[in-house]
C-alpha cells in the first residue's frame, strides 16, 4: 500500500518535472522573441522616424494641409512620429505572434499564419481609411467655402453630407479589402451610397428648391456682370 502510494507520487513528480522541462525552453524562447521583437521594433521605428524627418514628411504634410486635418481630429503628433509608432507596433505584434508560435500551445498553433496572412490587408484597409478621412475633410471644406462664397445657404449640410459620402465610400473599400462579409458590405454600401445620392438629388430638387433658386440667381448675377466689385466696379 505504502509502496504504491510512493510510486504514484514519484511518477507524478517525474511527469510534471518532465513537462516543465519541455515547456521551460519554449517559454524562454517566447520571452526572448518578445524581447527581441520589442528591441527591433524600437530601433526600426526610430530609424523610420529619422528617415521620414530627413525626407521632410512633416513639412510636406503641412504644405498639403494634413497637419491641420490631424489637428482638428485631436492628433497633435507629427506624421513622422505617427508612422514610427505604426512601425513599432507592427513589429511588436509580429514578435508576439512568433512568441505564441514558439510556445506551441495547441489552440494557438494556427493563429500566427492566419494573422500574418490577414495583416497586409488590415494595413491597406487602415491606409485607405486614413486617405479617405483626409480626402473627406478636404472636399467638405472646399465645398463649404465654395457654397458660402456663392452666397448660398445650407453650406454646412451639403459639406457634411459630402464628407460622410466620402467616408462611407472609404469604409466600403476598407471593409472589402479585409474581406469581412464582402457581399454584404458591397450590398450595404451600394444601398447606402445610392440612397445618399438619391436623397441629395431629391433634397436639392424638392426640399432645396430655394437653394437651387439662389444658385441660379447667383449664376445670373455673375453672367450679368455682377460678380465684380461693389456696384460692378473692379476689386483691384
Amino acid at each position, binding site marked *: 500500500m505504502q509502496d504504491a502510494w510512493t510510486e504514484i507520487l514519484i511518477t507524478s513528480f517525474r511527469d510534471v518535472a518532465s513537462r516543465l522541462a519541455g515547456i521551460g525552453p519554449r517559454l524562454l524562447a517566447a520571452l526572448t522573441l518578445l524581447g527581441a521583437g520589442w528591441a527591433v521594433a524600437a530601433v526600426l521605428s526610430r530609424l523610420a522616424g529619422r528617415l521620414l524627418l530627413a525626407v521632410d514628411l512633416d513639412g510636406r504634410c*503641412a*504644405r*498639403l*494641409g494634413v*497637419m*491641420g486635418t490631424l*489637428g*482638428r481630429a485631436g492628433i497633435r503628433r507629427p506624421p513622422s512620429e505617427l508612422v514610427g509608432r505604426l512601425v513599432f507596433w507592427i513589429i511588436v505584434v509580429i514578435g508576439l505572434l512568433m512568441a505564441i508560435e514558439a510556445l506551441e500551445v495547441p489552440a494557438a498553433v494556427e493563429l500566427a499564419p492566419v494573422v500574418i496572412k490577414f495583416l497586409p490587408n488590415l494595413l491597406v484597409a487602415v491606409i485607405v481609411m486614413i486617405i479617405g478621412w483626409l480626402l473627406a475633410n*478636404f472636399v467638405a*471644406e*472646399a465645398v*463649404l*467655402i*465654395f*457654397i*458660402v*462664397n456663392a*452666397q448660398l*445657404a445650407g*453650406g*454646412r449640410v451639403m459639406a457634411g453630407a459630402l464628407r460622410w459620402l466620402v467616408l462611407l465610400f472609404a469604409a466600403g473599400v476598407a471593409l472589402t479589402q479585409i474581406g469581412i462579409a464582402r457581399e454584404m458590405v458591397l450590398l450595404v454600401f451600394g444601398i447606402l451610397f445610392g440612397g445618399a445620392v438619391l436623397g441629395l438629388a431629391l433634397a436639392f430638387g424638392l426640399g432645396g428648391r430655394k437653394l437651387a433658386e439662389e444658385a441660379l440667381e447667383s449664376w445670373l448675377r*455673375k453672367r450679368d*456682370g455682377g*460678380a*465684380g*466689385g*461693389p*456696384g*460692378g*466696379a*473692379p*476689386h*483691384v
Partner: protein
Amino acid sequence: MPAAGPPDAAAILSRECRAALDALGPVEVVAGVHALNRAPHVTQLLDTVEAGLDKHVSPRRAAVLAADGGSQDGTADALRAWCLAERRGPARGCLDLVPPIQQGRAVVALLAAARGLGARGIVLLDADMVGVHADWMPALIEPVLAGGADYVSPAYSRAASEGTLTTNLLAPLTRALYGKRLQQITGGCSALAAPLVEHCLESGLEAGAPHGHGMEIALTTIALASGARVAETHLGRRRVDGSLPELDLATILVRTVGPVFELVERYRDVWAETRGSTAVPRFGEAPAVLTDARRPSIERMVRAFDLGMKDLLPVWEQVMPDATLARLYPLELLGPDEFAFPPALWARVISDFAVAHHERRLPRDHLLRALTPLYLGRVAAFLRDASASSPSGLAATLDQIGRAFEAEQEHLAARWR
C-alpha cells in the same frame, strides 16, 4: 551689338527670338506689352504704345516688345503680325517663350529682353488695360530716364467703390510692411530702371507668380523691399473693360492676396524692421476722387458677411484666435444701415490670415478663399463710410486704414515664427 542672351533669357526665350533681339541693336527705352486672350484689342494698344514712344521718347532709340502669356484666341498670331508689319519709328519685337507659356513668364521674358538690349528703362504694360493714352509712356518712363526713380507705379483717379481690394488690403498692408504709401500695388503698368530690372531677374521673379497680378505685386514688392527709389505718376482715370471675363472674387483673392502673403514670408527680415511709413514722390497732379456712377449694394455684401459668420466659423476657427473671433461676433448683429467693420479689427483679421498662411494651418487655396465674406464685410463698412464722406474725408478714411495696418505690424512680427 549687345548680347541679348544672358542665362535667364536663354532659359525663357527661344533661340530664334534671341537672334531677332540681337538684330534689333542697342535700345535705350523698351515698352513691353504682355497679353493674354486680347486678340481683338491688342494691336490698337500696341499702336498707342508705339505712338507714345515715337512722340515723346525720340530721339532716344526705343523698341516695343510684345509677349503672349498663353492665349487661346489668336493673340499670339496678332502680336506676330503686328511685329512683322513694315513701319518707321521704334523697333518692334515679338517674344517667343520656351514653354510653359504663362503671363508671369511673359513679364520675365520682357525684362530679360530689355536687359539683353541694354535698355536704361522699361515700361511694362498689361494688355488688359483699356483707355491707355500715348501720354502714359513719358509719364511712366521719364522719371526713370531722368534718374529720379528706379520704379514708377501708376496712380489713378478713381471712385470709392473702385479698387476696394487695393484700398482696403493690398495698399495698406504694403504700406505697413515696407513703409511706403503707394496707391496701386498692381496697377496694370509700371516703369523700371535697368538696375532694378537686373535685381528683379536675380531675385527669382519667375517662381510662384504665373498670373499677371502676382507678377505685378512681385515687381512692386521687390522694388520696395530692395530699397529702390519708388515713385508714382498720375495717369488719370483707369477704365475697365466690360468685355473681359470677370473672375470670381475668391479667385481674385487667391491671385492677389496669395502672392502678397508669399512675399511677406520672403521679406520677413525687411518688414520686421519697418516702422511707420512715408509718401512716395509723385509726378503729375494728385489723383482725384470721383463720384460713384452706381450705388454699390451694401446689403448684398453684409448678407455675404453674415452667411460667412453662420457657416464658415469652423474654417475661421482654424485661422483666427478666439480673441479676434470674439470681436467679429457682434458685427453679425448689425444691419446694413449701421454696419461697421473697424479698420483695426480688419487689420487684425488680415494679420491672423497671414500668420495662418505662413503656418499652413489650412490648404492655402482654402485659406484665401475663406477670406471672401470677411473682405465683403469690410468693403460694406468702407463704402458706408465713403458714402457719407467728402473727397478729403475719403482720403482721411484711407489713411486711417493704413495707420491701422501700421499699428498691427508689430503684432504680426511678434507672432511670426
